């Protein structure tokens, strides 16, 4: 009984809170990368969870045992209910966060325009479905800075459309426990390669890829797609808008750099006798953060309880302190 009292006491709770505060302050300064995932810190959180869970159970049994007495004074009732909600809310948040760290998943998923991805290939889910990207687009402000990124997505189940949704920043897609968030984007370039007498072929190049040829020992590096090329600025794009789209490329002989160019789309570039390339078009891909979090409903409920409870207690009708604490005294 002594042990139980110690484990569930407020003093223990406050000491744990102080330790967690201290550990967070020191840990985030010294080891910002991994301190909070390390076991000593998790152990502290686990202790706090146990302490607060027991403390909340104690408070609620007391609350219901003294219900008759408490309910005579609605102010005390209101405050006690608020206190219960507030502390229970924190307990729920700790449970939900624990569930995420052991059962949740989060991955970055790139999808090229027109492509479809089976969701259980990237993240374990019970009922799999497919995500298809129709188009990716960027909306711009007057000054050329991006104002929103849009991925027009379709959810497919057994080949049929289950949901059509445009994902943008702050507007994730939610389907059967899976959430997908607009995270990033990029471009692949269609390069038409004319290599000797063979028929031209098209390769899909990512920034940084090398293209090799049969008819020459030279190689081409597709360095970077630049949507708004400005010779004054060089390799950085002036804005994200495709005002003057170019592809910066470089040509090598072995390791020797022969030249660098910024090619517009649709113009053949001669690399050597009989060998040329042409940048045909860029194809955008979207990068989504795809997440499953079985703890999220608990965390959300806990957060709402915490917000409501804290307002009930601290902004609610202030009953005289003596009366209130007498109900809660051990």
């Amino acid at each position, binding site marked *: 009984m002594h042990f139980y009292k110690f484990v569930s006491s407020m003093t223990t709770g406050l000491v744990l809170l102080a330790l967690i505060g201290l550990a967070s302050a020191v840990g985030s300064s010294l080891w910002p990368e991994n301190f*909070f995932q390390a076991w000593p810190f998790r152990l502290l959180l686990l202790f706090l969870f146990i302490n607060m869970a027991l403390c909340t159970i104690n408070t609620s049994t007391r609350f219901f045992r003294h219900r008759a007495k408490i309910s005579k004074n609605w102010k005390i009732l209101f405050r006690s209910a608020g206190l219960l909600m507030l502390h229970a809310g924190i307990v729920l948040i700790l449970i939900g966060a624990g569930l995420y760290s052991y059962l949740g998943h*989060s991955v970055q998923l790139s999808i090229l325009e027109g492509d479809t991805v089976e969701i259980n290939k990237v993240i374990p889910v019970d009922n799999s479905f497919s995500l298809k990207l129709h188009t990716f687009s960027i909306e711009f*402000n007057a000054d050329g*800075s991006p*104002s*929103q990124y849009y991925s027009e997505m379709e959810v497919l189940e057994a080949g049929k459309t289950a949901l059509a949704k445009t994902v943008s*920043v702050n507007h994730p897609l939610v389907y059967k426990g899976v959430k997908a968030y607009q995270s990033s984007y990029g471009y692949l370039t269609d390069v038409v390669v004319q290599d000797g007498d063979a028929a031209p072929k098209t390769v899909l190049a990512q920034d940084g890829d090398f293209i090799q040829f049969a008819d020459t020992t030279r190689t081409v590096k597709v360095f970077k797609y630049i949507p708004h090329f400005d010779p004054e600025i060089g390799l950085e794009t002036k804005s994200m808008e495709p005002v003057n789209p170019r592809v910066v490329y470089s040509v090598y002989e072995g390791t020797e750099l022969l030249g660098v160019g910024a090619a517009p789309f649709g113009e053949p570039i001669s690399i050597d006798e009989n060998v040329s390339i042409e940048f045909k078009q860029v194809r955008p891909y979207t990068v989504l953060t795809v997440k499953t979090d079985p703890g999220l409903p608990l965390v959300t409920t806990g*957060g709402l309880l915490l917000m409501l409870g804290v307002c009930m207690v601290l902004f609610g009708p202030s009953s005289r302190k003596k009366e209130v604490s007498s109900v809660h005294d051990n």
Partner: protein
Amino acid sequence: MTTEHRMIDIVLVLYAAAAAGYFISGGQRWLGKVSFWLASIGLAANLIALVNRVSLSGRLPLSNGYEFLLSFTFITVLMYLLYEILSENKKASGVVMLMGTLLITAIIVLMPQQIGETTPLMPALKSPWLTVHVITAIIAYSAFTLAAGLAIIQLRNAISTDDSAIYKIVSAGFAMLSLSIVLGAIWAEQVWGSYWTWDPKETWALVTWIIYAIYLHLHRQRGWRGNNARILVIIGFLLVLFTFFGVNYLLPGLHSYA
């Protein structure tokens, strides 16, 4: 010098004059009154600067460090003047007005390039959750600033043991900080898919929250009333300052645009 620069300078001068007036008044009633009016006119100027900002940018003044500080100072001085009127107690005025002056100075020294400039919001910042997150943070920070001002005066004068005003103000601030942290987490979940990443801003806000939670428990359950409680309130305020300035200017993080 844009009109906006001039407005900020006027606010600064009025707040500084009010602080100086309070400090040298030494209980002289007429100087105390003059200072009160200087502070009130400063508050009106602060409001005009905010309204001007809104009309320039077409949105609430909450989206960069400069706008945050301007709103933060406004709410702090507003709360203080209401407190002074209600409590008829002027003792903390010099300290609080000095804090207001320093906050405005921080705008001029640390973020001069943001004055008179409006840039479009980046996509991540376009969220009603963010708006309520920042509004509640500003109210919380203002309450903690005022509470610390009162605590400093009580600590120095070591007279009245009645710290019920501090307790009430910290309570309100704590409730607002709790809302702010939860609302911020909701926003982060919507925009990045994770409600808590232990980035420095979140971590230090949590440390601040914990300090005030400890204060509230000790005050109520253990009857902490004296200087120890006041020192906790002041430590909490230093953490508020570190969460804002330290994290934004000394440490890298997701919030570095705020």
